[in-house]
């Protein structure tokens, strides 16, 4: 947050305190919170801050996302829209870890895969000898708990060394999990994995139909996005960014860098786990291939493609990735998708380290310099909303 924003918020809260103090009944806007015993003066800045962050672009994007299934075909709703949202959620966990915590973990897909496997094992699947057949909500809860525990463990292991070592340790853990899932038949059902892992029928909807699943994914993607957007401005997020920039100084200030890093892994683990549950329901199956090296790296590609400076990045990256994946057949041979995505990734790494967001701010700066600000805003909407 910039100093100017902060000053604005502080000034406004000071005025509000005076203004609401003299009233017997709080205004309608604040009614929801007047029931609590906390003084309104403590809460108003948050509301103001939130309100200040909402712009026309946000509302347009939100409306576009909500109305998208009405205009799109089921293929575009499910294969493109919902998949991009679920993948974006997993990549969001990496963006949070790498962009704000400075820890480039390649094991985020592994955490998502652990959640997916847990859903398959605890709930019902095509392999009834292994699946325990628990009710779906209990299975999902267990999956999230297990995945977060695993993520915390991965974090505990990898924060013992610093910087570039993280990528090696997390890649080793991720690939080791892939081989374990492939070798082990007692728990992971080996090479075949689990088929027919589907979401429940609830409230009269079958949640794997394109439109309900799209809204399910959209809900969790938005929840994840706003959660991360909030967290990076909360004291924990600020401290985490401090640890990223200078761990020794933060340590001297009385913060515990290791604890902050491990907590970041746990938080990212929760986000990735939700994405993992969505992915297993989207695919309807989970196999060792879902957590293989190519998918570990695909999540990195999505996050880097979008840009790690802002939580919207992974979703942009996911849209581009999914579009490439589905329409690469028109550009190149279907077999050569990996070549295409590798070249795109290498080009981004070599020429635009900040990904699409980097290009975007570069374009914005250029347009601003030439004085055409309205043009920038007009082209902003389709890009972030597509």
């Amino acid at each position, binding site marked *: 947050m910039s100093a100017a924003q902060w000053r604005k918020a502080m000034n406004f809260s000071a005025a509000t305190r005076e203004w609401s103090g003299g009233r017997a009944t709080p205004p309608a806007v604040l009614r929801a919170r007047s029931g609590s015993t906390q003084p309104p003066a403590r809460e108003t800045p948050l509301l103001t801050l939130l309100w200040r962050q909402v712009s026309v672009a946000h509302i347009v994007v939100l409306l576009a996302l909500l109305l998208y299934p009405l205009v799109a075909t089921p293929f575009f709703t499910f294969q493109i829209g919902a998949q991009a949202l679920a993948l974006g959620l997993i990549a969001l966990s990496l963006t949070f870890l790498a962009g704000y915590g400075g820890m*480039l973990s390649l094991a985020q897909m592994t955490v998502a895969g652990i959640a997916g496997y847990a859903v398959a094992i605890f709930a019902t699947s095509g392999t009834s000898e292994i699946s325990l057949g628990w009710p779906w909500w209990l299975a999902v809860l267990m999956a999230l708990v297990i995945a977060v525990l695993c993520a915390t463990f991965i974090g505990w*292991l990898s924060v*013992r*060394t*610093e*910087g*570039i*070592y993280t*990528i*090696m*340790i997390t*890649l*080793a*853990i991720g*690939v*080791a999990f892939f*081989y*374990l899932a492939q*070798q*082990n*038949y*007692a728990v992971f059902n080996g090479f075949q994995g689990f088929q027919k892992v589907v979401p429940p029928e609830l409230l009269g909807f079958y949640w794997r139909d394109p439109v309900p699943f799209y809204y399910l994914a959209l809900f969790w993607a938005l929840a994840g996005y706003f959660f991360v957007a909030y967290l990076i401005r909360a004291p924990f997020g600020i401290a985490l960014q401090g640890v990223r920039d200078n761990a020794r100084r933060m340590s001297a200030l009385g913060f515990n860098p290791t604890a902050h890093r491990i907590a970041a892994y746990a938080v990212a683990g929760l986000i990735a786990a939700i994405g993992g549950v969505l992915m297993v329901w989207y695919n309807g199956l989970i196999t060792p291939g879902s957590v293989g*090296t*190519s998918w570990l*790296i695909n999540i*990195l590609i999505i996050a*880097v493609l979008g840009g790690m400076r802002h939580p919207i990045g992974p979703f942009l990256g996911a849209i581009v990735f999914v579009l490439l994946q589905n329409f690469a057949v028109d550009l190149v041979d279907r*077999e*050569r998708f*990996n*070549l295409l*995505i*590798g*070249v795109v*990734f*290498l080009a981004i*790494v*070599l020429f635009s*380290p900040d990904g699409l967001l980097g290009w975007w701010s570069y374009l914005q700066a250029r347009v601003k310099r030439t004085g055409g600000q309205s043009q920038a805003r007009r082209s902003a909407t389709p890009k972030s909303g597509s």
Partner: protein
Amino acid sequence: MTRFWKWFWGLVAGVPIAVFIVWALADNARLFLVTTLNGLTLAALYFLVASGFTLVFGLLRNVNLAHGSLYLLGAYIGWVLGDWSDSWLLAVAGGFVSAALFGLLLQVGVFRFMQGQDLRQTMATIGLSIILADVMLWIWGGQIYQFDPPRWIVGSTTLPIVGKFPTYRLILFATSAVIGIVLWWFLNRTRVGMMIRAGVDDRAMLSASGVNVQVVFAITFAIGAGLAGFAGVVGGTALSIAPGEDTRYLLASLVVVIVGGMGSVVGAAHGALLIGLAEQFGLAYAPTYGIVFTFVVMTLVLAFRPQGILGRRS
């Protein structure tokens, strides 16, 4: 106090291992010895791959995640050469030279421009490994290739208790030991080796004392990549070459280097021994959980000695 803890942890780790060895020897001595020999062979192969990885990392601070791809590239090109010339030795040389040249090209053409940007270099190697894997799949397809080694190394040697054991695996172990010694001699007794060691300690100082570090970097990268290609042919002869092997050997190098200590060739030898033995014993005594043993070794090392067995704290 530290001495007490050393003894304490020594006992905690040592007693179960000793009990296991006694039990395994009493239960089935042949299985135990064969597994040990297999573990040593695998360790030799892992050392060949990982020594190049650790050398490059130590000097260039470049985590070359395309190292597995260089292994596979060397193996394929070696196979083509061997198929064309009917000479296995030429295949081995071809694997080394082609991977070394390719590594040189990468260092001079790509990584030189990103010196000091660890993360960007690493991500560039990830991109390269994807591209290389797909191009190799394109050229050589998905089938499994087997080398045709000369007759004198194909047969088996009779050893006491163990009985017949493939000669080639013994040769692999010997080769690896020779390479290790040569590498040690090169690093400790030659002028270029001295420069490399100096560069590991302090790059800026090496440059300041009038050495062209870019040349040293290029030589190191070429040797590291060449060792991977060499291992590709030698390892491909013991097992086989197929798509997906790149990931396997990348994982092996990563774990070996994490366990042994990054940047240390002797550490890579220690790590390779531990991981090779752990993997083979895992496969022999608990088949579906084999990889877990590797993982447990890595976890224990990271928990008690995060910098690796012979690593230095950065």
